[in-house]
């Protein structure tokens, strides 16, 4: 789960990371109020989970509450790379001496933690990594050893951060790491980490991603989840607990069990010349109810012309899947759309027999995954490869 900047800063502040004074606002009037309360020059920043908002006009400096209100009015409702701006963060503006970069993340490849720092902050760090890799200091932090003074020292001396900022920036890094551990984050990133004219360093931006598997330890973070930022179908899937759903742009609905098999199903649909309308992995142990809910969800997208159900039973029993499909069709009533069904694995013969007996006009049985994909594509209107 990715946090918005204002949420990330709230969380980092709890662990002692210094952040600018400010508050989130959902309306121009609220932004004005925040600006008035802070007094002096403020920055109004679009809250979107995507980079490049500065270039897109999503960050504006305002000298007065009036200007802050105007800035918020201009920013709220903007679309930045497909993300609609629904909130702005209004913060006190300070005199920045220099911009640095700092982050901790889970390094999947090395199966450890990775800390990074750079004197080249305030710019796209992936670009720095590509053009000037030596400007980024990296240290692997063994999860059992934890962040130690020598890690911080290596990040400070290796990054080119000015020695006069080592103490403050080092302390910030220690707190940032505490936040990383304490929130079960997969990433905490501060870019830019700025040194201010008055002395001291501040996290001027914050990107925090929380491990979804650890949410049971963090009800406070779960409460920050912004379902409003999701699409309607995604939200429904999340709220009703219908597996893992991602909206796509095509007309062939896809339901599979297991992420890998479902991804592979998308691929064979594309290979057959169709375009998948969605990714929906109903997970292990799916049953009649969850199957019915999944079908309901996919057909909620009017662009869907055909549904492809691709199940390889392991824990999941194919007979229950078959019953779920029939149940869903009964509940949906007068559906014209066809469902291509391919069942294999645990209780596949029973499942196929159930469907055969039902002889439902909307159900098309397929013997293999490839055949199923081809049929679904044809039923959805044939090859559309651009």
């Amino acid at each position, binding site marked *: 789960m990715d946090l918005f900047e204002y949420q990330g800063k709230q969380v980092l502040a709890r662990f002692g990371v210094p952040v600018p004074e400010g508050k989130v606002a959902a309306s121009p009037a609220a932004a004005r109020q925040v600006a008035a309360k802070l007094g002096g020059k403020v920055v109004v920043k679009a809250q979107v989970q995507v980079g490049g908002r500065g270039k897109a006009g999503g960050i504006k400096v305002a000298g007065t509450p009036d200007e802050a209100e105007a800035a918020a009015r201009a920013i709220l409702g903007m679309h930045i790379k497909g993300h609609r701006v629904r909130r702005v963060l209004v913060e006190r503006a300070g005199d920045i001496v220099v911009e640095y970069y700092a982050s901790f993340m889970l390094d999947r490849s090395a199966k450890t933690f990775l800390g990074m720092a750079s004197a080249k902050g305030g710019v796209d760090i992936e670009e720095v990594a590509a053009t000037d890799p030596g400007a980024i200091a990296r240290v692997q932090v063994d999860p059992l050893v934890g962040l130690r003074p020598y890690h911080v020292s290596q990040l400070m001396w290796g990054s080119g951060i000015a020695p006069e900022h080592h103490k403050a920036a080092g302390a910030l890094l220690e707190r940032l790491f505490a936040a990383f551990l304490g929130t079960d984050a997969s990433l905490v990133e501060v870019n830019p980490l700025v040194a201010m004219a008055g002395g001291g360093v501040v996290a001027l931006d914050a990107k925090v991603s929380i*491990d979804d598997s650890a949410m049971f330890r963090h009800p406070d973070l779960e409460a920050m989840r912004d379902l409003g930022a999701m699409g309607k179908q995604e939200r429904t899937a999340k709220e009703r607990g219908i597996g893992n759903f991602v909206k796509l742009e095509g007309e062939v609905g896809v339901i599979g069990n297991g992420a890998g098999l479902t991804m592979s199903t998308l691929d064979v649909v594309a290979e057959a010349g169709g375009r998948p309308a969605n990714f929906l992995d109903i997970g292990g142990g799916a049953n009649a109810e969850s199957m019915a809910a999944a079908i309901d969800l996919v057909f909620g997208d009017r662009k869907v012309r055909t549904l492809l159900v691709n199940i*390889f039973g*392991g824990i999941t029993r194919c007979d229950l899947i078959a019953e779920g499909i029939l149940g869903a069709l009964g509940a949906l009533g007068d559906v014209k759309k066809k469902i291509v069904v391919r069942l294999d694995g645990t209780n596949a013969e029973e499942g196929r027999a159930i469907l055969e007996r039902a002889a439902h006009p909307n159900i098309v049985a397929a013997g293999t995954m490839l055949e199923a994909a081809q049929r679904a594509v044809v039923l959805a209107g044939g090859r559309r490869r651009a």
Partner: protein
Amino acid sequence: MSILLDSGTRVVVQGITGGEGTFHTRRNIEYGTNVVAGVTPGKGGQRAVDGRVPVFNTVAGAVEKEGADASLVFVPARFAADSILEATDAGCSLVVCVTEGIPALDMARVYPHVRAKGVALVGPNCPGLISPGKANMGIIPGEITGPGPIGLLSRSGTLTYQVMYEMWTRGLGQSTCVGIGGDPIVGSSFIDVLERFEADPETRVVVMIGEIGGDEEEKAARFIRERMTKPVVAYIAGFTAPAGKRMGHAGAIISGSKGTAQAKKEVLEACGVAVGVNPTEAAELAIKALG
């Protein structure tokens, strides 16, 4: 000799008295797996799975009394990391963790300890492993495969079954099939398993099933080029996955340009690995590689 697991392996099941634990242990036993003990704290002295398996309070007890040397973990996510450590310290040389949803931080702390102790950890969030005709540890359906010359390894669950099934319908069985799991941090990596297949006389061809995200496949590709003499065939899922969107388990996050299915395919092919465009073609490539 199969890799990691054979009929002599003495398996203890952690969480044996839970619903999943009982169900899959029964299936594993019926497959022929030598399940010698179960562990559920507080139920020591009882017998589980229709009275067939003695239950202990601790893995140490199961190791001491029943000589267990491999553990299969069906414990709920918030306790599973602890269970892996327990099995490791009790002296199991193989630990297979099926449990899904273990926090990555917990696994990050488990991994270096397990590694330092020289334990082969498979998973978590994996279907387990099967040496067809010998033993089955986990949830892979045993009936869709049989013994044969193919070593199979995969980050995925049901997709693995699909590939096994594609092979089996063509009369092709496996020496061992290992689902390494799709979580951000898993125990055995592709390379760890490839190394074992290379050394295994029963394995003639290796089939590797990858997916988008991470760089496991790229690292494996280089390992194959530099260190393997046996032919390796691959399949990668996720060509149609949109960049930056999450697809199910955490192993499937695209991070920039690296980690795409296309990038993985290119690296694999550059390292001499034939890559099938779908599971069917992957199975057919494996047959071809057998010659």
